[in-house]
Protein backbone atom coordinates (compact mmCIF):
# COMPACT_ATOMS: atom_id res chain seq x y z
CA UNK A 1 0.00 0.00 0.00
CA UNK A 2 0.82 3.62 0.10
CA UNK A 3 2.17 6.34 -2.03
CA UNK A 4 5.40 8.32 -1.94
CA UNK A 5 3.80 11.04 0.13
CA UNK A 6 2.51 8.75 2.84
CA UNK A 7 5.79 6.88 2.95
CA UNK A 8 7.64 10.12 3.56
CA UNK A 9 5.18 10.97 6.32
CA UNK A 10 5.76 7.54 7.79
CA UNK A 11 9.49 8.04 7.97
CA UNK A 12 9.03 11.43 9.57
CA UNK A 13 6.72 10.06 12.25
CA UNK A 14 8.84 7.12 13.21
CA UNK A 15 12.04 9.10 13.60
CA UNK A 16 11.54 10.61 17.09
CA UNK A 17 11.05 7.18 18.63
CA UNK A 18 13.99 5.70 16.74
CA UNK A 19 16.37 8.57 17.47
CA UNK A 20 15.52 8.72 21.17
CA UNK A 21 15.88 4.98 21.66
CA UNK A 22 19.10 4.96 19.70
CA UNK A 23 20.51 7.64 21.99
CA UNK A 24 19.22 5.86 25.06
CA UNK A 25 20.93 2.69 23.99
CA UNK A 26 24.18 3.89 22.48
CA UNK A 27 25.22 6.73 24.77
CA UNK A 28 25.07 4.97 28.16
CA UNK A 29 26.17 1.63 26.77
CA UNK A 30 29.10 3.29 25.06
CA UNK A 31 30.00 5.00 28.32
CA UNK A 32 29.77 1.73 30.24
CA UNK A 33 32.11 0.07 27.78
CA UNK A 34 34.48 3.03 27.99
CA UNK A 35 34.44 3.11 31.81
CA UNK A 36 35.05 -0.59 31.97
CA UNK A 37 38.52 0.01 30.52
CA UNK A 38 39.40 2.76 33.02
CA UNK A 39 40.65 2.72 36.59
CA UNK A 40 37.88 4.93 37.87
CA UNK A 41 36.71 5.20 41.46
CA UNK A 42 34.51 8.03 42.62
CA UNK A 43 36.26 8.05 46.01
CA UNK A 44 39.70 8.46 44.42
CA UNK A 45 39.78 11.75 42.56
CA UNK A 46 42.29 12.48 39.85
CA UNK A 47 43.20 10.79 36.61
CA UNK A 48 41.26 7.85 35.33
CA UNK A 49 43.96 5.97 33.44
CA UNK A 50 43.23 3.44 30.73
CA UNK A 51 43.92 0.00 32.13
CA UNK A 52 42.74 -2.31 29.39
CA UNK A 53 41.10 -5.46 30.64
CA UNK A 54 42.20 -5.01 34.26
CA UNK A 55 38.66 -4.41 35.50
CA UNK A 56 37.45 -7.53 33.75
CA UNK A 57 40.17 -9.64 35.29
CA UNK A 58 39.38 -8.13 38.70
CA UNK A 59 35.71 -8.80 38.15
CA UNK A 60 36.20 -12.42 37.13
CA UNK A 61 38.64 -13.05 40.00
CA UNK A 62 36.47 -11.29 42.57
CA UNK A 63 35.65 -13.94 45.19
CA UNK A 64 32.03 -12.87 44.87
CA UNK A 65 31.85 -13.32 41.10
CA UNK A 66 31.47 -17.07 40.77
CA UNK A 67 29.08 -17.40 43.70
CA UNK A 68 26.99 -14.57 42.29
CA UNK A 69 26.93 -16.19 38.86
CA UNK A 70 25.87 -19.50 40.41
CA UNK A 71 23.26 -17.68 42.51
CA UNK A 72 21.95 -15.93 39.41
CA UNK A 73 21.58 -19.25 37.62
CA UNK A 74 19.90 -20.89 40.59
CA UNK A 75 17.57 -17.97 41.02
CA UNK A 76 16.59 -17.90 37.35
CA UNK A 77 16.38 -21.68 37.05
CA UNK A 78 14.48 -22.18 40.28
CA UNK A 79 11.90 -19.53 39.56
CA UNK A 80 11.46 -20.75 35.99
CA UNK A 81 10.93 -24.31 37.14
CA UNK A 82 8.36 -23.36 39.77
CA UNK A 83 6.46 -20.86 37.66
CA UNK A 84 6.35 -22.88 34.45
CA UNK A 85 5.28 -26.14 36.00
CA UNK A 86 2.95 -24.38 38.41
CA UNK A 87 1.66 -22.17 35.63
CA UNK A 88 0.74 -25.10 33.38
CA UNK A 89 -1.07 -26.86 36.22
CA UNK A 90 -2.87 -23.71 37.29
CA UNK A 91 -3.82 -22.84 33.73
CA UNK A 92 -5.27 -26.32 33.21
CA UNK A 93 -7.21 -26.00 36.47
CA UNK A 94 -8.53 -22.54 35.71
CA UNK A 95 -9.57 -23.58 32.23
CA UNK A 96 -12.07 -26.08 33.65
CA UNK A 97 -15.70 -25.07 34.07
CA UNK A 98 -16.30 -23.90 37.66
CA UNK A 99 -18.28 -21.45 39.71
CA UNK A 100 -16.71 -18.05 40.24
CA UNK A 101 -14.01 -18.51 37.61
CA UNK A 102 -13.60 -14.77 37.18
CA UNK A 103 -12.93 -14.23 40.86
CA UNK A 104 -10.45 -17.08 41.13
CA UNK A 105 -8.63 -15.67 38.15
CA UNK A 106 -8.41 -12.30 39.83
CA UNK A 107 -7.09 -13.86 43.03
CA UNK A 108 -4.45 -15.80 41.15
CA UNK A 109 -3.08 -12.94 39.09
CA UNK A 110 -3.07 -10.40 41.92
CA UNK A 111 0.54 -10.97 43.08
CA UNK A 112 1.82 -9.76 39.74
CA UNK A 113 0.57 -6.27 40.51
CA UNK A 114 2.31 -6.04 43.85
CA UNK A 115 5.45 -3.95 43.61
CA UNK A 116 8.65 -5.94 44.29
CA UNK A 117 9.58 -3.92 47.34
CA UNK A 118 6.21 -4.48 48.97
CA UNK A 119 6.10 -8.19 48.29
CA UNK A 120 9.66 -8.62 49.55
CA UNK A 121 8.86 -6.74 52.76
CA UNK A 122 5.62 -8.55 53.39
CA UNK A 123 7.20 -11.95 52.90
CA UNK A 124 10.28 -11.07 54.90
CA UNK A 125 8.48 -9.68 57.93
CA UNK A 126 5.05 -11.14 58.08
CA UNK A 127 5.71 -14.62 56.77
CA UNK A 128 9.38 -15.57 57.04
CA UNK A 129 10.22 -13.82 60.27
CA UNK A 130 11.31 -16.58 62.71
CA UNK A 131 9.49 -14.97 65.67
CA UNK A 132 6.38 -13.23 64.44
CA UNK A 133 5.94 -14.69 60.97
CA UNK A 134 3.03 -16.83 59.83
CA UNK A 135 5.41 -19.64 58.85
CA UNK A 136 6.91 -19.69 62.33
CA UNK A 137 3.42 -20.06 63.77
CA UNK A 138 2.57 -22.88 61.35
CA UNK A 139 5.78 -24.69 62.31
CA UNK A 140 4.86 -24.15 65.93
CA UNK A 141 1.42 -25.65 65.40
CA UNK A 142 3.03 -28.80 64.06
CA UNK A 143 5.50 -28.82 66.92
CA UNK A 144 8.49 -27.97 64.73
CA UNK A 145 11.13 -25.38 65.57
CA UNK A 146 10.79 -22.10 63.72
CA UNK A 147 13.05 -21.80 60.74
CA UNK A 148 14.86 -18.56 59.99
CA UNK A 149 14.37 -18.56 56.25
CA UNK A 150 16.37 -15.50 55.29
CA UNK A 151 19.33 -16.37 57.50
CA UNK A 152 19.61 -20.07 56.69
CA UNK A 153 18.18 -20.39 53.22
CA UNK A 154 18.39 -16.88 51.80
CA UNK A 155 18.53 -17.83 48.15
CA UNK A 156 15.68 -20.32 48.45
CA UNK A 157 13.60 -17.69 50.24
CA UNK A 158 14.19 -15.19 47.50
CA UNK A 159 13.34 -17.83 44.91
CA UNK A 160 10.04 -18.40 46.71
CA UNK A 161 9.23 -14.69 46.87
CA UNK A 162 10.07 -14.11 43.23
CA UNK A 163 8.18 -17.22 42.16
CA UNK A 164 5.11 -15.93 43.97
CA UNK A 165 5.38 -12.74 41.94
CA UNK A 166 5.88 -14.44 38.59
CA UNK A 167 3.56 -17.42 38.89
CA UNK A 168 0.59 -15.24 37.87
CA UNK A 169 2.41 -14.10 34.75
CA UNK A 170 3.08 -17.65 33.62
CA UNK A 171 -0.44 -18.75 34.51
CA UNK A 172 -2.09 -15.86 32.74
CA UNK A 173 -0.16 -16.34 29.51
CA UNK A 174 -0.55 -20.11 29.47
CA UNK A 175 -4.24 -19.76 30.25
CA UNK A 176 -4.67 -17.30 27.42
CA UNK A 177 -2.92 -19.69 25.08
CA UNK A 178 -5.06 -22.57 26.31
CA UNK A 179 -8.23 -20.60 25.74
CA UNK A 180 -7.17 -19.64 22.25
CA UNK A 181 -7.08 -23.33 21.38
CA UNK A 182 -9.86 -23.94 18.90
CA UNK A 183 -12.46 -26.05 20.68
CA UNK A 184 -13.34 -27.63 17.34
CA UNK A 185 -9.84 -29.05 17.27
CA UNK A 186 -10.46 -30.74 20.59
CA UNK A 187 -13.84 -31.98 19.44
CA UNK A 188 -12.37 -33.27 16.21
CA UNK A 189 -9.72 -35.18 18.14
CA UNK A 190 -12.42 -36.53 20.43
CA UNK A 191 -14.33 -37.74 17.38
CA UNK A 192 -11.09 -39.31 16.17
CA UNK A 193 -11.03 -41.35 19.33
CA UNK A 194 -8.49 -39.48 21.46
CA UNK A 195 -9.00 -39.82 25.21
CA UNK A 196 -8.35 -37.02 27.71
CA UNK A 197 -4.67 -37.90 28.10
CA UNK A 198 -4.12 -38.24 24.38
CA UNK A 199 -5.86 -34.92 23.82
CA UNK A 200 -3.60 -33.30 26.40
CA UNK A 201 -0.38 -34.64 24.93
CA UNK A 202 -1.19 -34.47 21.21
CA UNK A 203 -3.29 -31.32 21.04
CA UNK A 204 -2.76 -29.15 24.11
CA UNK A 205 0.95 -29.62 24.76
CA UNK A 206 2.01 -28.69 21.22
CA UNK A 207 -0.35 -25.74 21.39
CA UNK A 208 1.07 -24.61 24.73
CA UNK A 209 4.71 -25.15 23.93
CA UNK A 210 5.01 -21.87 22.08
CA UNK A 211 3.44 -19.89 24.89
CA UNK A 212 5.60 -21.72 27.41
CA UNK A 213 8.72 -20.81 25.46
CA UNK A 214 7.67 -17.18 25.46
CA UNK A 215 7.04 -17.33 29.20
CA UNK A 216 10.45 -18.83 29.86
CA UNK A 217 12.34 -16.38 27.69
CA UNK A 218 10.60 -13.25 28.93
CA UNK A 219 10.86 -14.26 32.54
CA UNK A 220 14.53 -15.01 32.06
CA UNK A 221 15.11 -11.46 30.90
CA UNK A 222 13.42 -10.06 33.99
CA UNK A 223 14.83 -12.63 36.40
CA UNK A 224 18.41 -11.98 35.36
CA UNK A 225 17.99 -8.52 36.83
CA UNK A 226 16.15 -9.27 40.06
CA UNK A 227 17.26 -6.54 42.40
CA UNK A 228 14.72 -4.95 44.73
CA UNK A 229 13.78 -8.24 46.37
CA UNK A 230 17.42 -8.87 47.33
CA UNK A 231 18.08 -5.32 48.45
CA UNK A 232 15.07 -5.30 50.73
CA UNK A 233 15.36 -8.78 52.22
CA UNK A 234 18.99 -9.84 52.56
CA UNK A 235 21.23 -7.17 51.06
CA UNK A 236 22.87 -10.00 49.20
CA UNK A 237 23.84 -11.83 52.35
CA UNK A 238 24.56 -13.46 54.61
CA UNK A 239 28.02 -13.06 53.07
CA UNK A 240 27.38 -13.46 49.39
CA UNK A 241 24.82 -16.25 49.78
CA UNK A 242 22.08 -14.34 47.95
CA UNK A 243 24.10 -11.94 45.80
CA UNK A 244 23.26 -12.16 42.13
CA UNK A 245 25.07 -10.52 39.26
CA UNK A 246 22.86 -7.44 39.28
CA UNK A 247 23.29 -6.93 42.97
CA UNK A 248 27.05 -7.45 42.72
CA UNK A 249 27.37 -4.76 40.08
CA UNK A 250 25.18 -2.45 42.13
CA UNK A 251 27.29 -2.91 45.24
CA UNK A 252 30.54 -2.45 43.37
CA UNK A 253 29.48 0.72 41.63
CA UNK A 254 27.10 2.46 44.00
CA UNK A 255 28.27 1.10 47.37
CA UNK A 256 32.03 0.90 46.68
CA UNK A 257 31.98 3.65 44.06
CA UNK A 258 34.21 1.60 41.75
CA UNK A 259 32.87 2.80 38.42
CA UNK A 260 35.41 0.86 36.35
CA UNK A 261 34.76 -2.45 38.03
CA UNK A 262 30.99 -1.93 38.08
CA UNK A 263 31.02 -1.10 34.40
CA UNK A 264 32.92 -4.26 33.57
CA UNK A 265 30.33 -6.21 35.55
CA UNK A 266 27.54 -4.41 33.73
CA UNK A 267 28.98 -5.43 30.38
CA UNK A 268 29.18 -9.05 31.53
CA UNK A 269 25.50 -8.84 32.53
CA UNK A 270 24.63 -7.37 29.14
CA UNK A 271 26.39 -10.19 27.33
CA UNK A 272 24.64 -12.78 29.46
CA UNK A 273 21.25 -11.21 28.80
CA UNK A 274 21.96 -10.96 25.09
CA UNK A 275 22.48 -14.67 24.82
CA UNK A 276 18.93 -15.16 26.07
CA UNK A 277 17.62 -12.23 24.08
CA UNK A 278 18.76 -13.72 20.78
CA UNK A 279 16.52 -16.74 21.32
CA UNK A 280 13.60 -14.62 22.43
CA UNK A 281 13.89 -12.27 19.49
CA UNK A 282 13.90 -15.15 17.09
CA UNK A 283 10.66 -16.46 18.59
CA UNK A 284 8.92 -13.12 18.46
CA UNK A 285 10.30 -12.33 15.03
CA UNK A 286 8.85 -15.54 13.67
CA UNK A 287 5.52 -14.53 15.07
CA UNK A 288 5.71 -11.23 13.24
CA UNK A 289 5.39 -12.98 9.90
CA UNK A 290 1.85 -14.12 10.52
Amino acid at each position, binding site marked *: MATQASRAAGRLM*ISPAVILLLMWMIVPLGMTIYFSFLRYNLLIPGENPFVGLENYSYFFTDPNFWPSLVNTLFLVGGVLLITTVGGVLLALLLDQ*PMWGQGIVRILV*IAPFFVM*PTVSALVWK*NMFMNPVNGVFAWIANVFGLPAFDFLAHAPLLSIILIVSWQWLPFATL*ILLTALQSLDSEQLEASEMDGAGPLARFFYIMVPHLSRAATVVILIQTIFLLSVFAEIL*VTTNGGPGNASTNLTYLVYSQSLLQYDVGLGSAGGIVA*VILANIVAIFL*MRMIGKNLET
Partner: protein
Amino acid sequence: MARASTTQRKAVVTVCAWAVGLVIFFPILWTILTSFKSEVDAIAIPPKFLNFNWTLDNYHDVQERSRYFLHFMNSVIISLGSTILALIIAIPAAWSMAFVPGRRTKDILMWMLSTKMLPAVGVLVPIYLIFRDFGLLDTRTGLIIVLTMMNLPIVVWMLYTYFKEIPGEILEAARMDGATLSKEIIYILTPMAVPGIASTLLLNVILSWNEAFWTLNLTAANSAPLSAFIASYSSPEGLFYAKLSAASTMAIAPILILGWFSQKQLVRGLTFGAVK
Protein backbone atom coordinates in the same frame (compact mmCIF):
# COMPACT_ATOMS: atom_id res chain seq x y z
CA MET B 1 -16.31 -39.10 28.27
CA ALA B 2 -19.07 -39.49 30.81
CA ARG B 3 -20.97 -36.23 30.71
CA ALA B 4 -23.41 -37.17 33.45
CA SER B 5 -21.07 -36.31 36.30
CA THR B 6 -20.48 -32.78 35.04
CA THR B 7 -21.96 -31.05 38.06
CA GLN B 8 -20.04 -33.17 40.50
CA ARG B 9 -16.87 -32.60 38.59
CA LYS B 10 -17.53 -28.89 38.46
CA ALA B 11 -17.94 -28.82 42.22
CA VAL B 12 -14.60 -30.55 42.76
CA VAL B 13 -12.86 -28.23 40.33
CA THR B 14 -14.44 -25.22 42.02
CA VAL B 15 -13.23 -26.25 45.47
CA CYS B 16 -9.69 -26.95 44.24
CA ALA B 17 -9.44 -23.75 42.25
CA TRP B 18 -10.75 -21.58 45.08
CA ALA B 19 -8.36 -23.21 47.53
CA VAL B 20 -5.38 -22.60 45.27
CA GLY B 21 -6.55 -19.08 44.49
CA LEU B 22 -6.90 -18.19 48.15
CA VAL B 23 -3.48 -19.59 49.04
CA ILE B 24 -1.89 -17.50 46.31
CA PHE B 25 -3.84 -14.43 47.30
CA PHE B 26 -3.29 -14.93 51.02
CA PRO B 27 -0.20 -12.71 51.47
CA ILE B 28 -2.11 -9.80 49.99
CA LEU B 29 -5.19 -10.53 52.04
CA TRP B 30 -3.04 -10.84 55.15
CA THR B 31 -1.39 -7.51 54.45
CA ILE B 32 -4.75 -5.82 54.05
CA LEU B 33 -6.07 -7.41 57.27
CA THR B 34 -2.96 -6.53 59.22
CA SER B 35 -3.23 -2.92 58.14
CA PHE B 36 -6.40 -2.65 60.25
CA LYS B 37 -4.84 -4.15 63.40
CA SER B 38 -3.09 -2.55 66.30
CA GLU B 39 0.66 -3.22 66.38
CA VAL B 40 0.10 -5.66 69.23
CA ASP B 41 -2.53 -7.64 67.36
CA ALA B 42 -0.34 -7.60 64.27
CA ILE B 43 2.38 -9.71 65.86
CA ALA B 44 0.11 -11.83 68.02
CA ILE B 45 0.76 -15.57 68.08
CA PRO B 46 -1.44 -17.37 67.16
CA PRO B 47 -2.28 -14.86 64.44
CA LYS B 48 -5.64 -13.11 64.66
CA PHE B 49 -7.63 -13.45 61.49
CA LEU B 50 -10.78 -11.42 62.00
CA ASN B 51 -11.13 -11.35 65.77
CA PHE B 52 -9.21 -8.16 66.43
CA ASN B 53 -10.11 -4.55 67.09
CA TRP B 54 -10.42 -2.97 63.69
CA THR B 55 -8.69 0.39 63.53
CA LEU B 56 -7.75 2.98 60.96
CA ASP B 57 -4.96 4.40 63.09
CA ASN B 58 -2.21 2.91 60.97
CA TYR B 59 -3.32 4.75 57.88
CA HIS B 60 -3.32 7.91 59.89
CA ASP B 61 0.07 7.20 61.44
CA VAL B 62 1.75 6.37 58.17
CA GLN B 63 0.89 9.80 56.88
CA GLU B 64 1.87 11.46 60.19
CA ARG B 65 5.25 9.84 60.49
CA SER B 66 6.31 10.19 56.90
CA ARG B 67 5.40 12.25 53.92
CA TYR B 68 3.34 9.41 52.54
CA PHE B 69 1.17 11.63 50.40
CA LEU B 70 4.24 13.14 48.73
CA HIS B 71 5.49 9.71 47.73
CA PHE B 72 2.07 8.70 46.53
CA MET B 73 1.91 11.78 44.31
CA ASN B 74 5.43 11.04 43.10
CA SER B 75 4.22 7.62 42.01
CA VAL B 76 1.20 9.09 40.26
CA ILE B 77 3.14 11.83 38.49
CA ILE B 78 6.05 9.63 37.50
CA SER B 79 4.00 6.71 36.22
CA LEU B 80 1.44 8.81 34.40
CA GLY B 81 4.01 11.26 33.12
CA SER B 82 6.32 8.64 31.71
CA THR B 83 3.44 6.73 30.14
CA ILE B 84 1.89 9.75 28.45
CA LEU B 85 5.26 10.92 27.19
CA ALA B 86 5.91 7.46 25.79
CA LEU B 87 2.49 7.44 24.11
CA ILE B 88 3.11 10.78 22.46
CA ILE B 89 6.35 9.51 20.98
CA ALA B 90 4.99 6.06 20.17
CA ILE B 91 1.64 6.77 18.49
CA PRO B 92 3.13 8.32 15.34
CA ALA B 93 5.80 5.63 15.23
CA ALA B 94 3.28 2.82 15.55
CA TRP B 95 1.04 4.45 12.94
CA SER B 96 3.93 4.55 10.56
CA MET B 97 4.93 0.95 11.15
CA ALA B 98 1.41 -0.44 10.96
CA PHE B 99 0.14 1.45 7.93
CA VAL B 100 3.19 2.46 5.92
CA PRO B 101 5.44 -0.51 6.53
CA GLY B 102 8.72 -0.36 4.71
CA ARG B 103 11.36 -2.98 4.15
CA ARG B 104 13.03 -2.02 7.42
CA THR B 105 9.95 -1.91 9.62
CA LYS B 106 10.41 -5.39 10.93
CA ASP B 107 14.05 -4.75 11.72
CA ILE B 108 13.20 -1.55 13.55
CA LEU B 109 10.59 -3.33 15.63
CA MET B 110 13.00 -6.07 16.56
CA TRP B 111 15.70 -3.58 17.35
CA MET B 112 13.37 -1.65 19.64
CA LEU B 113 12.59 -4.89 21.37
CA SER B 114 16.27 -5.60 21.81
CA THR B 115 16.79 -2.33 23.69
CA LYS B 116 14.28 -3.61 26.23
CA MET B 117 16.44 -6.66 26.76
CA LEU B 118 19.38 -4.56 27.80
CA PRO B 119 19.73 -5.23 31.53
CA ALA B 120 19.36 -2.02 33.46
CA VAL B 121 22.46 -2.73 35.48
CA GLY B 122 24.51 -2.48 32.28
CA VAL B 123 23.78 1.22 32.03
CA LEU B 124 23.40 1.98 35.73
CA VAL B 125 26.79 3.62 36.15
CA PRO B 126 26.66 6.07 33.24
CA ILE B 127 23.02 6.99 33.89
CA TYR B 128 23.84 7.60 37.53
CA LEU B 129 26.81 9.80 36.60
CA ILE B 130 24.92 11.70 33.90
CA PHE B 131 22.07 12.32 36.30
CA ARG B 132 24.49 13.47 38.97
CA ASP B 133 26.15 15.91 36.57
CA PHE B 134 22.85 17.28 35.27
CA GLY B 135 21.26 17.52 38.70
CA LEU B 136 18.62 14.95 37.81
CA LEU B 137 19.25 12.65 40.76
CA ASP B 138 16.27 12.50 43.06
CA THR B 139 14.03 14.46 40.71
CA ARG B 140 10.72 13.46 39.22
CA THR B 141 11.86 14.71 35.83
CA GLY B 142 14.84 12.40 35.84
CA LEU B 143 12.76 9.39 36.69
CA ILE B 144 10.13 10.26 34.12
CA ILE B 145 12.84 10.36 31.46
CA VAL B 146 14.28 7.00 32.45
CA LEU B 147 10.93 5.26 32.70
CA THR B 148 9.75 6.73 29.40
CA MET B 149 12.74 5.26 27.66
CA MET B 150 12.43 1.97 29.53
CA ASN B 151 8.82 1.54 28.45
CA LEU B 152 8.93 3.08 24.99
CA PRO B 153 9.62 -0.23 23.23
CA ILE B 154 6.67 -1.91 24.95
CA VAL B 155 4.39 1.02 24.15
CA VAL B 156 5.39 1.02 20.49
CA TRP B 157 4.91 -2.71 20.27
CA MET B 158 1.54 -2.78 21.93
CA LEU B 159 0.22 0.09 19.85
CA TYR B 160 1.63 -1.54 16.74
CA THR B 161 -0.23 -4.78 17.39
CA TYR B 162 -3.45 -2.85 18.03
CA PHE B 163 -3.08 -0.62 14.98
CA LYS B 164 -2.37 -3.65 12.82
CA GLU B 165 -5.84 -4.89 13.56
CA ILE B 166 -7.44 -1.78 12.09
CA PRO B 167 -8.06 -2.53 8.41
CA GLY B 168 -5.96 -0.33 6.15
CA GLU B 169 -8.95 -0.05 3.82
CA ILE B 170 -10.72 2.16 6.34
CA LEU B 171 -7.86 4.64 6.35
CA GLU B 172 -7.78 4.51 2.57
CA ALA B 173 -11.49 5.20 2.48
CA ALA B 174 -10.86 8.28 4.61
CA ARG B 175 -8.14 9.34 2.22
CA MET B 176 -10.54 8.91 -0.71
CA ASP B 177 -13.10 10.91 1.23
CA GLY B 178 -10.70 13.82 1.36
CA ALA B 179 -9.16 13.46 4.81
CA THR B 180 -5.63 14.77 5.15
CA LEU B 181 -3.09 12.79 7.12
CA SER B 182 -3.74 14.66 10.35
CA LYS B 183 -7.51 14.38 9.97
CA GLU B 184 -7.14 10.71 9.14
CA ILE B 185 -5.32 10.19 12.44
CA ILE B 186 -7.62 12.43 14.49
CA TYR B 187 -11.05 11.44 13.12
CA ILE B 188 -10.54 7.83 12.10
CA LEU B 189 -7.50 6.12 13.58
CA THR B 190 -7.52 7.50 17.11
CA PRO B 191 -11.21 6.89 17.85
CA MET B 192 -10.90 3.38 16.48
CA ALA B 193 -7.76 2.73 18.48
CA VAL B 194 -9.05 4.13 21.77
CA PRO B 195 -9.41 0.70 23.41
CA GLY B 196 -5.88 -0.22 22.38
CA ILE B 197 -4.40 3.08 23.49
CA ALA B 198 -6.24 2.85 26.80
CA SER B 199 -4.96 -0.60 27.60
CA THR B 200 -1.45 0.39 26.58
CA LEU B 201 -1.69 3.31 28.95
CA LEU B 202 -2.98 1.08 31.72
CA LEU B 203 -0.27 -1.54 31.39
CA ASN B 204 2.45 1.07 31.34
CA VAL B 205 1.14 2.88 34.35
CA ILE B 206 1.26 -0.46 36.15
CA LEU B 207 4.80 -1.24 35.02
CA SER B 208 6.05 2.24 35.90
CA TRP B 209 4.26 2.24 39.26
CA ASN B 210 5.96 -1.00 40.26
CA GLU B 211 9.37 -0.27 38.79
CA ALA B 212 11.92 -0.72 41.55
CA PHE B 213 15.41 -0.75 40.07
CA TRP B 214 15.70 2.81 38.86
CA THR B 215 13.48 4.26 41.56
CA LEU B 216 15.70 2.71 44.25
CA ASN B 217 18.93 3.79 42.63
CA LEU B 218 18.10 7.27 41.39
CA THR B 219 15.85 8.72 44.07
CA ALA B 220 16.06 9.68 47.71
CA ALA B 221 13.74 11.51 50.10
CA ASN B 222 12.25 14.02 47.68
CA SER B 223 11.20 12.27 44.54
CA ALA B 224 10.98 8.67 45.72
CA PRO B 225 7.80 7.03 44.48
CA LEU B 226 6.12 4.44 46.67
CA SER B 227 8.16 1.54 45.30
CA ALA B 228 11.32 3.16 46.68
CA PHE B 229 9.75 4.74 49.76
CA ILE B 230 8.38 1.41 51.01
CA ALA B 231 11.90 0.02 51.04
CA SER B 232 12.67 2.32 53.98
CA TYR B 233 10.50 0.04 56.10
CA SER B 234 13.11 -2.68 55.74
CA SER B 235 15.42 -0.94 58.20
CA PRO B 236 15.18 -2.47 61.70
CA GLU B 237 13.53 0.51 63.38
CA GLY B 238 10.76 0.29 60.82
CA LEU B 239 9.51 -3.03 62.07
CA PHE B 240 5.94 -2.06 62.64
CA TYR B 241 3.85 -4.68 60.87
CA ALA B 242 0.58 -2.84 61.01
CA LYS B 243 2.03 0.39 59.65
CA LEU B 244 4.05 -1.46 57.06
CA SER B 245 0.82 -3.16 56.01
CA ALA B 246 -1.09 0.08 55.84
CA ALA B 247 1.60 1.71 53.72
CA SER B 248 1.79 -1.37 51.51
CA THR B 249 -1.96 -1.62 51.09
CA MET B 250 -2.16 1.96 49.95
CA ALA B 251 0.75 1.41 47.59
CA ILE B 252 -0.67 -1.66 45.89
CA ALA B 253 -4.41 -1.02 46.00
CA PRO B 254 -4.69 1.42 43.06
CA ILE B 255 -2.58 -0.76 40.82
CA LEU B 256 -4.30 -3.95 41.88
CA ILE B 257 -7.60 -2.48 40.77
CA LEU B 258 -6.19 -1.14 37.50
CA GLY B 259 -4.47 -4.46 36.92
CA TRP B 260 -7.64 -6.46 37.25
CA PHE B 261 -9.17 -4.35 34.52
CA SER B 262 -6.30 -4.91 32.16
CA GLN B 263 -5.78 -8.68 32.52
CA LYS B 264 -6.29 -9.44 28.86
CA GLN B 265 -4.16 -6.63 27.51
CA LEU B 266 -1.45 -7.53 29.96
CA VAL B 267 -0.71 -10.78 28.20
CA ARG B 268 -0.37 -9.09 24.88
CA GLY B 269 1.77 -6.26 26.20
CA LEU B 270 4.13 -8.43 28.17
CA THR B 271 4.68 -10.91 25.38
CA PHE B 272 5.07 -8.25 22.70
CA GLY B 273 2.07 -9.65 20.89
CA ALA B 274 3.55 -13.14 20.74
CA VAL B 275 0.59 -14.49 22.74
CA LYS B 276 -2.83 -12.94 22.36
